[in-house]
């Protein structure tokens, strides 16, 4: 009974600690489903134009983020909290030709890009990081396939509105042309693409065509350039603003803007999650304490004769107390060990149910759960042990 009480408490604590520690990854990955919460843009110089006393508006110098600098995002102090990012290079293109031609926005991005981290911040850090639009837009509904090859220069993912307008289905080929200036003269670049998948986000992306970044860079003759970077960052114990300012420090000329509403919602969710776990843990430990208290009280009551006998043959109170303390410690230890095993199974159940993934076994949880289990067991035994030491040895002769 005592071991079962500890087992239940230890199992709940183990499950919640395991989920809690795994949540940094799992909840974070879950949050990426809600999209990016940080947008990086190049710092633009805005120049006011006009005459004295006459304001004629302003012009903004077109600036870009260098694609070659993006690896530095994974070298900031909070790099582990950067769950994924995707750069975007936008351009207006003409889809098709003749009278049926339509204008659409083409966005070059990463789908599944492995980035080399030139100078990892720590020797333990990996030298590569694979990321892409799926990390920041995983809620997209895709008919057909995602583009998975980072070197695929002929496939495109087409927004559902564009596909409807142009009557495109998965597997269809279509032509895009970009009219721009090349070497000071007007030039039109044409590219034939094939629909890998048709995506639907419910947002502006439904009106866009997505291709691998080099395709867009080639088409618009802007090699190595990026307009914006959408970044999914999670910081449990720090604001996302800190991540933004760190990135600004690493990538000069880049401004990080947080999407506060989403960020705050994420933090709020995490806070609620942590509060709920703390509450459940407290309730579980309280239940364990009550269970052990009941067990130990019953044990002392059942063993009054035995305690009286021990005292009558010379046992001092400290011997009686140490007997029950040892028993409580053993109950705590066995309950803690078995509870840890049950808790790991419970954590997998929670992980699969809530996050659709297993939770890694964190052995450091065992180092926390065992002392907690023993501590709870000893705490719950304090009053019963006091009662045990108060048993009078004379009861063995009185036959009570």
């Amino acid at each position, binding site marked *: 009974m005592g071991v079962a009480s500890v087992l239940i408490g230890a199992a709940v604590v183990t499950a919640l600690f395991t989920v809690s520690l795994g949540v940094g990854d799992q909840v974070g990955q879950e949050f990426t489903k809600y999209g990016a919460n940080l947008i990086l843009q190049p710092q633009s110089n805005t120049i006011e134009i006009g005459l004295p006393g006459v304001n004629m508006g302003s012009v903004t110098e077109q600036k870009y983020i260098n694609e070659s600098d993006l690896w530095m995002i994974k070298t900031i102090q909070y790099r582990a909290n950067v769950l994924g990012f995707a750069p975007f290079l936008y351009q207006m293109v003409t889809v098709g030709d003749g009278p049926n031609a339509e204008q659409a926005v083409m966005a070059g991005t990463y789908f599944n890009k492995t980035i080399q981290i030139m100078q990892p911040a720590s020797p333990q850090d990996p030298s590569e990081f694979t990321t892409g639009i799926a990390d920041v837009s995983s809620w997209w509904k895709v008919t057909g396939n995602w583009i998975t090859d980072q070197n695929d220069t002929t496939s495109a993912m087409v927004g559902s509105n564009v596909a409807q307008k142009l009557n495109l289905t998965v597997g269809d080929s279509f032509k895009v042309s970009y009219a721009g200036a090349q070497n000071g003269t007007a030039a039109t670049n044409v590219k034939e693409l094939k629909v890998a998948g048709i995506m639907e986000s419910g947002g502006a992306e439904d009106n866009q065509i997505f291709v691998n970044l080099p395709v867009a860079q080639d088409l618009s003759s802007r090699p190595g350039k990026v307009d914006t970077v959408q970044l999914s960052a999670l910081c449990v114990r720090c604001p996302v603003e800190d991540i933004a300012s760190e990135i600004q420090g690493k990538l000069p000329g880049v401004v990080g803007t947080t999407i506060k509403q989403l960020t705050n919602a994420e933090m709020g969710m995490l806070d609620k999650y942590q509060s709920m776990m703390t509450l459940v843990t407290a309730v579980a430990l309280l239940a364990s304490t009550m269970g052990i208290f009941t067990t130990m009280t019953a044990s002392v009551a059942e063993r009054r004769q035995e305690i009286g006998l021990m005292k009558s043959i010379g046992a*001092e109170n400290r011997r009686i107390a140490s007997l029950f303390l040892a028993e409580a410690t053993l109950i705590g230890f066995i309950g803690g060990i078995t509870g840890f095993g049950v808790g790991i199974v419970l954590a997998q159940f929670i992980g699969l149910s809530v996050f659709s993934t297993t939770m890694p076994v964190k052995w450091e949880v065992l180092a926390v759960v065992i002392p907690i289990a023993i501590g709870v067991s000893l705490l719950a035994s304090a009053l019963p042990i006091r009662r045990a030491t108060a048993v009078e040895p004379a009861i063995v*002769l009185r036959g009570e």
Partner: protein
Amino acid sequence: MDDALISLEKVTKVYGGGTRALNEVTLSFEKDEWTTIMGPSGSGKTTLLNIIGCLDVPTSGIVRIAGNEVTGVGQAALTRLRRENVGLIFQQYHLIPYLTALENVTLAQYYHGSPDDSKAVDALKNVGMGHRLDHPPAHLSGGEQQRVCIARALVNEPAILLADEPTGNLDQTNGNMVLQLIERLHEEGRAIVLVTHNPDISGLGDRTIRIVDGSVEQDSKFRGDRNGE
């Protein structure tokens, strides 16, 4: 009285609720004396045994054990006095069920601070239980359990053995065997205080004290007389 192993002067014990179990009892018990305490149920026999055995303290009066005054000492000192001077034999044996016969005996040594397996084995052999060392109480007859209880009481070589109805739960054969054993221990020089309401046993000791309503009604010494000496 100064040479007495145990002495009681005007000892009174009143339990909560006002029950007066002992009323100004003055007695002394000498070394190597076998005293039988008799009396009807509720007369105060067991209370007297509790006080002699340092299991309880009187409400008033003075108790001395082996020259040490018990009155007013704390529980720890009382435990120490009991451990060093008293061996207890119970009617219901009170063996710990999950320990073997040998372990039950060594438990008393453990609390005494002198665990010694060979001495515990000798104590069990001394009561004829050398062949049952590793048996738990459930595998022993009543007489055997009582003998293990006696071995436990003896193992620390106490000055006095207190026996509370030691044959009360035994048939005549086993009862006689236990009494013969107690008689042998007495002959070896041990003081014995035995509580019983069996008149047949009262004749075995050197002295019989009859308690009625918490007071000594009769105190008969017949050392030597019993054997016609």
